């Protein structure tokens, strides 16, 4: 079981990382988006390996479902004769690769060498009932505030993207 788990992890990790690199490097936006969908699905697999089935299901519903579709729609809606929408502010893009490589290596080194005192080797993620207990008891307040965040998102999306006439 343990070996299967390890093997599955490395296969999924390889897929996720290569898909993520694909998102950044593909020239065609649609290819990037599809690569992103694969990456998100792989991340759901990682959650399953971590015994977080609810999070895996939510990942599929929200990221693979909603967010990806939203992004694909936006890509379709903003196809422009003169090419894709570009960011108008200048960036030093050549510095990004070495910088991020450095950051990645340093972070990995530090996190991998750290000894986590309070960690156990047993799987501890609670089941759905346990999650609900935590979410609706301890974190009821931020959960309610979250509804305001979604309200703001609705208002903002309507305000910015609707086709209403100027007053």
């Amino acid at each position, binding site marked *: 079981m343990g070996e299967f788990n390890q093997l599955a992890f490395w296969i999924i990790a390889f897929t996720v990382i290569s898909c993520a690199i694909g998102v950044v490097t593909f020239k065609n936006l649609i290819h990037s988006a599809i690569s992103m969908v694969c990456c998100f699905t792989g991340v759901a697999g990682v959650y399953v390996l971590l015994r977080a089935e609810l999070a895996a299901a939510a990942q599929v519903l929200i990221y693979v479902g909603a967010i990806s579709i939203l992004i694909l729609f936006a890509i379709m809606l903003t196809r422009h004769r003169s090419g894709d929408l570009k960011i108008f502010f200048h960036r030093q893009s050549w510095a990004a690769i070495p910088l991020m490589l450095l950051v990645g290596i340093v972070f990995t080194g530090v996190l991998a060498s750290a000894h986590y*005192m*309070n960690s156990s080797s047993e799987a501890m993620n609670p089941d759905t009932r346990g999650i609900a207990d935590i979410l609706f008891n301890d974190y009821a307040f*931020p959960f309610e505030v979250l509804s*305001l*965040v979604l309200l703001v998102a609705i208002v903002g999306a309507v*305000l910015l993207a609707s086709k209403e006439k100027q*007053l």
Partner: protein
Amino acid sequence: MQHDLLAIIPELMLIATALVILLIDPLLPPDGRRGLGYLGVFACAMAGLSTWFLRNEEFTAFNDAISLDRYTIYFKALFLVIAVIAMLLSEKHLELHRRLLGDYYSLILLATVGMMVMTESIDIMTFFVGLELMALASYILAGFFRYDELSVEASLKYFLTGAFASTFVLFGLALLYGITGYTNYQQIGETIAAGNVPGSTLVIAIILVIAGFGFKVGAVPFHNWAPDVYQGSPTPVAAFLSVGPKAAGFAVLIKFMTVILGSESGTWVGLIIAIAIVTMLVGATMALVQRDLKRMLAYSSIAHVGYLLLAISASGEEVAAFASASIMFYLAAYALMNLGAFGVLVYLSNNSSFGNRLDDLAGLGKQFPWAAGILTVFMLSLAGIPPTAGFFAKFYLFAAVVDAGLAWLAMVGALFSLVSAFYYLRVIVYMYMRQPEQELERSGERSFDLNLGLGLAAVGVLLLGLYPSPVLDAAQDALLMVLGF
């Protein structure tokens, strides 16, 4: 249960009003929408009243998600003042740009709620949700003039940098949770102080959190978005964005640095000092070369962030209470004078062909004597010249830094403050001593709201300058009660 709701009465008032405004806005005829702003102001006034009744309460609510105490009450009151003045400044401007919609006031109120939630949070999840509520509302507000390309570009730039910065804060918070196993500030702080955490991971978490906050408050090297966003977004929104999110960011930063990372001050003080010096340097020098007033105010606000960071570094020393109190006072003074300075720009662009350029100011002293006079007050205050609020704010701030044994740092700050006085005074010189090549065309009409907002800010700046002790005492009381100094 009743007790829990008591802690969020001001928020509940603002949320209810925001919802009511959203509901009745479509039912109103276009010119009936003017009343919505007053509704928002009224809600803020009521919420302010409720903070007054809550001022002696001290408890945690919702299973340690938030706490109510003098510290949060102080900041809630400050956010309400900011929201009121911002709403008063907006109405005429929105009407002239044909964007007078109730959504605007709802978003300002909800952003204010977000700031309050951030400040009162004692749990990283509550903090994160509050931060995002404030941030999302601000992105939309920046792009509120959606038929103006500059405004939408400002909104996009704000969104991209803001979302990018959020991921850094979030990763830092995730690591803090990972190494301690807690999400409560106090518990995280105690676990870190007990020394049972991997030190190198902690350092990375600290760097990530500081970088994320640096983005949010506009500290160098993460400041590039600020000038573009302030220049592009509608001027009243720029006024709100240049003070509200910053005050909230610093309110949380003080909590973070003392409650969570207080035992690790050796790690972060040096980093904060370095960021503070570079921030003051860039803010002061770049403001010198700006010809656009909104960009100049943006760089000036970056310089002010630098001074505030100086005091944050001082709060790592023994005199933390004094330093934090000076930050709280400074934020109040800064909020009033910056809102006022932007407000005068709103006034001028409402009433004339004023284009926010420095050259447009020439001859203003004759043409718009009242506006020029008020702008002079705000500029003197921003420069830190007595008898204005800016002077005392800077005085206490640098005094706190000196008390912390960082006298050389206070010297550096005073030096940059001297440089910055040049570009503030230049505004006054342009207004009174320069002949205009072409007079501004008068247009538009007077607005009682705008005048009231400007008056409030100006009176506040002068009052805080002449009689600062009530606010300063409130800040010090707040810290004595809360952070346990």
